[in-house]
């Protein structure tokens, strides 16, 4: 961490956060159009919420944005791991603290005095979305290259298993985004911090 104690988010973090946001929006909206080609859970996504116009367009967006998600995600995880930020910011996650702070948050009493410090619910949510992104990439690899990754394919229940895992991981990502954006609306200075760094 730089000496400047007023910095909440370093520059690299803000860049990777917003690149990731772009990649996720492109992937989720084009993914919905791809899902609509065979609505295997019995419902379709409204067309106006999807990206790509038709299946081939959606696939082109999806297989372009995947590179951004992948390389940006690897960069994010590597910098986090090597600077020690991952361990410092996200761990430990204590179940008791998560429950207490979850209760406080629901009663609207969770304090956000210091944005540099993540509370236990935040830690859990951010670690969840990191793991969820890894699951999305791995299940996506099986769907894209089912012959080339035999071990991964069998671990994820074959092509059809990976298809469902990919969908549920997407749903998990969307649930995270929903809560994340609601929290930003409730505590708007977190948005300023993610833009300006302080």
């Amino acid at each position, binding site marked *: 961490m730089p000496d400047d104690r007023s910095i909440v988010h370093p520059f690299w973090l803000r860049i990777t956060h917003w690149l990731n946001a772009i990649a996720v929006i492109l992937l989720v*909206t084009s993914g919905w*159009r*791809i*899902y609509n*080609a*065979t609505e*295997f859970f019995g419902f379709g996504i409204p*067309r*106006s*919420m*999807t*990206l*790509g*116009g*038709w*299946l*081939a*367009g959606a*696939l*082109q*967006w999806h*297989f*372009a944005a995947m*590179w951004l998600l992948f390389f940006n995600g690897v960069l994010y995880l590597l910098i986090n791991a090597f600077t020690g930020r991952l361990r410092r910011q996200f761990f430990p996650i204590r179940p008791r603290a998560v429950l207490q702070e979850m209760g406080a948050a629901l009663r609207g009493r969770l304090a956000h005095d210091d944005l540099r410090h993540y509370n236990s619910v935040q830690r859990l949510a951010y670690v969840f979305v990191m793991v969820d992104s890894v699951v999305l990439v791995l299940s996506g690899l099986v769907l*894209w*290259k*089912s*012959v*080339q990754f*035999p071990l991964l*394919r069998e671990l994820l229940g*074959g*092509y*059809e298993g990976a*298809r469902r895992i990919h969908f549920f991981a997407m749903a998990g990502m969307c649930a995270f985004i929903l809560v994340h954006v609601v929290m930003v609306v409730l505590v708007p200075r977190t948005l300023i911090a993610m833009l300006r760094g302080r």
Partner: protein
Amino acid sequence: MIQRLRPHKIVLPGEGADMLADAIGRIAQPSRRAFLKRSLTLGGLTLLTGCTTSDQDSIEAALMRISRFNDSAQGLLFNPNLLAPTYPESMITDPFPFNAYYSEDEVREIDGDVWRLELSGMMADRRPWTLAQLRALPQQSQVTRHICVEGWSAIGKWGGVLFSHFLKLVGADLGAKYVGFKCGDDYFTSIDMATALHAQTIMALTYNDQPLPPRYGFPMKLRMPTKLGYKNPKHIQVIFVTNTYPGGYWEDQGYNWFGGS
């Protein structure tokens, strides 16, 4: 409606694969434009960004370039020694779904007695083949999963001639980049040579141990469990080997050319 292409009516001179590719490229332009027009909506993104039509044309062009880059990336990822999983016959999907760019009542009836498999491009022996001659070659079968670009998959059993065996038999240039197909239903597509030589790529003459029924591509389809459905051409009439990118019916409209695993 998508314009139907009839490239099988182009007469190929002896070394005409390059000309063919060129012609296909030009003919394909109208459908390419249709793709651009269809993609213009881009969900609600247009409203958010205020993109103009020319911006969207360049977005489409960029996406197409990335898709071609992905072809190269997939070529590098392709391990020719890895096999697609095979399944017991009890897992065969019955009925196996019909899928094409036309509906099932438009399936072409091809007369197997007059049908000839024509060969063209970079191969030594371009004499046409009869169905009986193909059936006399060594046969093998596979129970594999067919994966559609739409996401669904189904398991089926196909039998026929190992394509690498056939290509060697006719003296095809195995160092060439592409193998192209023109079909009796006006469909056309092309694949990379590495996939053409894969141990599970077969010229399928049977489905479920019976002669290939018309809806599954009588008299012959190319069956590749490493490729998505639209890369597996049915009713094949012409096979050509070339170094010039031949594209394909759906590929020219935006589906990824490598299209497989």
